[in-house]
């Protein structure tokens, strides 16, 4: 599996995209869909090819100031690696 670095730019893999409705968005991919809410949705909305992992973490840390130090970084990494394993996110 490719290594997720601070400089990696996570983005949707080919053939993966947003679908559903504005109120209930889903990520569509071959043979499946996942409903994303809350932080997951915020992270994926930042996976538009413009931001590196470090930038995504920084944005989230600004938004969730009370989170324990390092937790956001670890959570984002786990989340993105899981989706990478499913071939939904590339970096």
């Amino acid at each position, binding site marked *: *599996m*490719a290594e997720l670095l601070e400089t990696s730019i996570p983005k949707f*893999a*080919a*053939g*993966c*995209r947003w*679908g*559903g409705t504005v109120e209930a968005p*889903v990520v*569509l*991919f*071959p*043979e499946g*869909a996942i409903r994303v809410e809350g932080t997951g949705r915020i992270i994926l909305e930042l996976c538009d090819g413009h931001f590196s992992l470090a930038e995504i973490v920084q944005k989230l840390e600004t938004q969730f100031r009370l989170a324990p130090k390092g937790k956001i970084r670890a959570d984002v990494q786990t989340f993105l690696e899981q989706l*990478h*394993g*499913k*071939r939904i996110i590339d970096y």
Partner: protein
Amino acid sequence: MTKCSNPLALIAEITHRCPLHCVYCSNPLELTSRQEELATADWLRVFREAAALGVLHLHLTGGEPLARPDLADMIAGARQSRLYTNLITSGIGLSHERLAQLVESGLDHIQLSFQDASEDPANWIAGARAHAHKLELAGWIRSHSIAFTTNLVVHRQNIEHLEEMIAALEALHPDRMEIAHAQYYGWALQNRSALLPTRAQLGRAVAVVAEAEERLRGKVRIDMVVSDYHARFPKACMGGWGRQLLLIDPAGRALPCHAAGVIPGMRFDNVRKATLDWIWQNSEAFQKFRGEDWMPEPCRSCDRRKEDFGGCRCQAFLLTGDASATDPVCELAPLHHIVEDAVREDATPGSTPEPREAPFHVLQEKMAGFWSYRTDPK
């Protein structure tokens, strides 16, 4: 009436015409002719109705969907209805230009079928010269930003080449590999004695796939579907009858699954006469085995009924003559011996020829009568 959830996927068999004659084809033995096929406008209305019903994925399949000259219009219509569009194809009839046109129309995902690792045995299984074109096409597909799946149907005539097949497909850089063991319906059931692998062969195949999955993690997603003849319990066929999927055949008949047409006495409503919403909620065919009321014992009181929904109704009918019987694949089924007998009688490696040694035309000649090729509709 059993309350129902909304369907998530629509399988659109837009034609039964196909240049390939694969011996494991899941199409019904009685194929729909070109004259009976739904018009473009009907399909576009069905796609709109499907999306309104909550369907997310559209699977355009056949036959060979490329046989329809209006395929790009259908993809554009589906995309306009916000459906995720998947094309399941042999690739025959797809030029560089036409592929670009389909992608421009909004195609999200293409699933290209392969029959074996090398040309002669692959063509022998497909009953047509197709393998070389598929390889060329794979390169063209990769030049577009759409998801690419290679689909490999596994059975006794190619299962020993599985490692080689995975390596060959890996070289085409797909996002996903579907390794689908033949399912014994339609033409595959007719050819079961040539196709059913032995338990030992299946065990080795599962190990080969597990190794590939580990090695390719993050690079290629591998999804495997095994035939349930060797399993202890049946598959959750279609995610349960009338629970998640619906299929429209080329003539517009709405079926709860590919093979439902084999069950006698079923009445399928047609999208020419009814809306998809009405069909999903009310059609007799979708009501028939929805929920648990139809279940016999041992299913009715079994904990697994929430997982496998009693298995496959079509398989129950095809093997026992009773569509309401417990799927005989289940080791708890009163008629489980039917499957055990089939495995004992059909899965005999002694009858496996060595197809790789001879060119396609020699194989066809030498092996005439070995199995029946899928025919083309009139």
